[in-house]
């Protein structure tokens, strides 16, 4: 019997001919990523378990990307960055992107892609649940805690239970005003926040393969909001184009066998997709945008690993160009590269940055910022009982900073359309006119 792409990659990294869902195997790790929130704890466990002077298993496979609590006066948060620096120095680690230098990147999941660490066929672990994002490159990637990360630092290995695979196929063409964010919110709404627990979410179909790498990343990014272990999309020419521009490291392409066994398969007609929001306080609390148009908003937030990529800002700019926002609107590029692109990319002769400024939006520095609330002085942090529309990925109580806030998750198109009107608005009203 055949194997899915996830099973094939895991088997290859466990030195096995084949694996089956439920098998517990030890896999060799190609890349371990950590950041400022989980790095310090990981390094402490590593030293405790392997010795003060222990060395990491492979310097070239460790990637450290500070991104969570960056532009803050919080002394503990800044101390944590110092701990990263110290460890990087002790271990002479080559892949570190220090705060306050030209080398600073921003949100780790996009930085991994942009710096060439996402390569088809590889196994990547990160101390962050949205590490599933990298699966857009036809690789196995998932989030882990400090203990597992410390174990990898010392051994280069980790135990994995081979997940069953759920297949989500989209045939046809997505409507112009529908984005990957709408698609994933729709699927999470269908299967629930634990609908894919312990499982792989594999995305297939012409509609999926017609998406850019950034849009594919959005699909895989939110696998964790359905409880998934990983999200994955087979690599194709679009993938290789992106990867070849960023690294010449080797890669290997795996594809799901025709006779592979899926735990679940659902085929959607892409042309029937509509703009979707997740209402407070859960990512599976799905509603059609068109059913929520009377929800009044206090602010809009466009940013994060889910909704702060160049594609996301191109979408927002398309709607905001030449108009004024009605509510406080926060723009937070995920990485420096995205930020630089905002200054370079033009739409009708105007740079994206000018479009946002002229629309009256506030611009933040690249980092996770208010996606996870953060220290009190974090840019865009939700206050009191504000109603927020956000392109981020979680709207559990308190996630964006205030336990009383109401957060609606939406696509960049929907967030921008809503920023212009002050209530939840269908982007189709602006795009299909």
């Amino acid at each position, binding site marked *: 019997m055949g194997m899915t792409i996830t099973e094939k990659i895991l088997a290859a990294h466990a030195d096995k001919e084949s694996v089956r869902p439920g098998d517990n195997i030890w896999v060799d790790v190609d890349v371990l990523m950590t950041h400022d929130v989980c790095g310090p704890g990981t390094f402490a466990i590593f030293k405790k*378990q392997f010795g003060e002077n222990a060395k990491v298993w492979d310097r070239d496979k460790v990637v450290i990307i500070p991104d969570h609590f960056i532009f803050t006066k919080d002394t503990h948060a800044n101390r944590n960055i110092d701990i990263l620096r110290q460890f990087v120095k002790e271990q002479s680690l080559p892949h570190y992107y220090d705060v306050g230098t030209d080398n600073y990147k921003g949100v780790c999941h996009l930085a991994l892609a942009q710096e060439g660490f996402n390569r088809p066929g590889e196994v990547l672990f990160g*101390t962050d649940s949205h590490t599933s994002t990298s699966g857009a490159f036809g690789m196995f990637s998932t989030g882990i805690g400090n203990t*597992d990360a410390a174990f990898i630092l010392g051994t280069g290995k980790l135990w994995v239970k081979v997940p069953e695979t759920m297949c989500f196929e989209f045939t046809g063409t997505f409507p112009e005003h529908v984005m990957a964010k709408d698609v994933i919110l729709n699927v999470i709404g269908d299967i629930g926040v634990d609908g894919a627990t312990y499982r792989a979410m594999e995305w297939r179909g012409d509609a999926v393969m017609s998406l850019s790498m950034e849009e594919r990343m959005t699909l895989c990014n939110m696998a964790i909001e359905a409880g998934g272990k990983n999200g994955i999309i087979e690599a194709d020419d679009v993938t290789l184009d992106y990867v070849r521009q960023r690294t010449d490291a080797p890669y290997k392409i795996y594809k799901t066998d025709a006779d592979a066994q899926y735990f679940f398969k659902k085929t959607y007609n892409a042309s029937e997709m509509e703009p979707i929001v997740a209402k407070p306080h859960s990512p599976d609390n799905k509603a059609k945008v068109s059913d929520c148009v009377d929800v009044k908003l206090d602010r809009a937030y466009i940013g994060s690993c889910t909704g702060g990529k160049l594609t996301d800002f191109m979408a927002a700019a398309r709607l905001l160009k030449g108009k004024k926002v009605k509510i406080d609107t926060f723009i937070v590029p995920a990485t420096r590269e995205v930020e630089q692109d905002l200054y370079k990319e033009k739409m009708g002769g105007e740079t994206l940055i000018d479009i946002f400024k002229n629309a009256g939006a506030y611009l933040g520095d690249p980092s996770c910022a208010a996606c996870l609330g953060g220290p009190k002085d974090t840019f865009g942090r939700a206050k009191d009982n504000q109603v927020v529309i956000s392109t981020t990925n979680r709207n559990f*109580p308190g996630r964006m900073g205030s336990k009383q806030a109401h957060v609606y998750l939406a696509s960049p198109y929907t967030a921008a359309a809503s920023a212009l009107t002050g209530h939840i608005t269908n982007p189709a009203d602006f795009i299909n006119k």
Partner: protein
Amino acid sequence: MDKVIEGIAYVLGNDIDTDQIIPAEHLVYSLSDPEERKHYGKFALSGVPDDQAGLPDGKIPFTENGQSESKYSIIIGGKNFGCGSSREHAPACMEIAGVRAVVAESYARIFYRNSVDGGFFIPFECVTRMVEEIKTGDDLVIDLNASTLTNRSANKTYELKSLGEVIEIIEAGDIFEYARKTGMIPSTSRGGS
């Protein structure tokens, strides 16, 4: 590993995510510094909305008056316990506050794994939903050999699911001890603590 775990119940609902277990603004503290780590106990479960905190009545703080230890050491949860971010600060803060076991209907994958691999406490799964059966403050005892949970306040005993293959890691203590026992990493490799 203790064969019996006794403690007072603290009952929560479904989808308790890691931002409710430990809000992100507190993640700045060190988990290895003995003084600083106490903050985690103090803020454990502080993100749970008031009406959901300590069911069925709610509005019961998990820790009181800035203390880092809670009188509740067995958590009863619903579905998808520990969903959300991969932060190990979540199971860690619960252990620091004194939690020794969680009994939930189901877990999010990373939280479950972190609890086991880090040896923070034992995550049990119940056979039938316990959230409406047990009240915050009830006197509980878990018998590991019999795989049961007894509510001494109501004189009722419930079956728990077997811990399955992770029992070996739980018995060893954590993933490092397990790897030493099985020869994956040399038993001499260990730093000072």
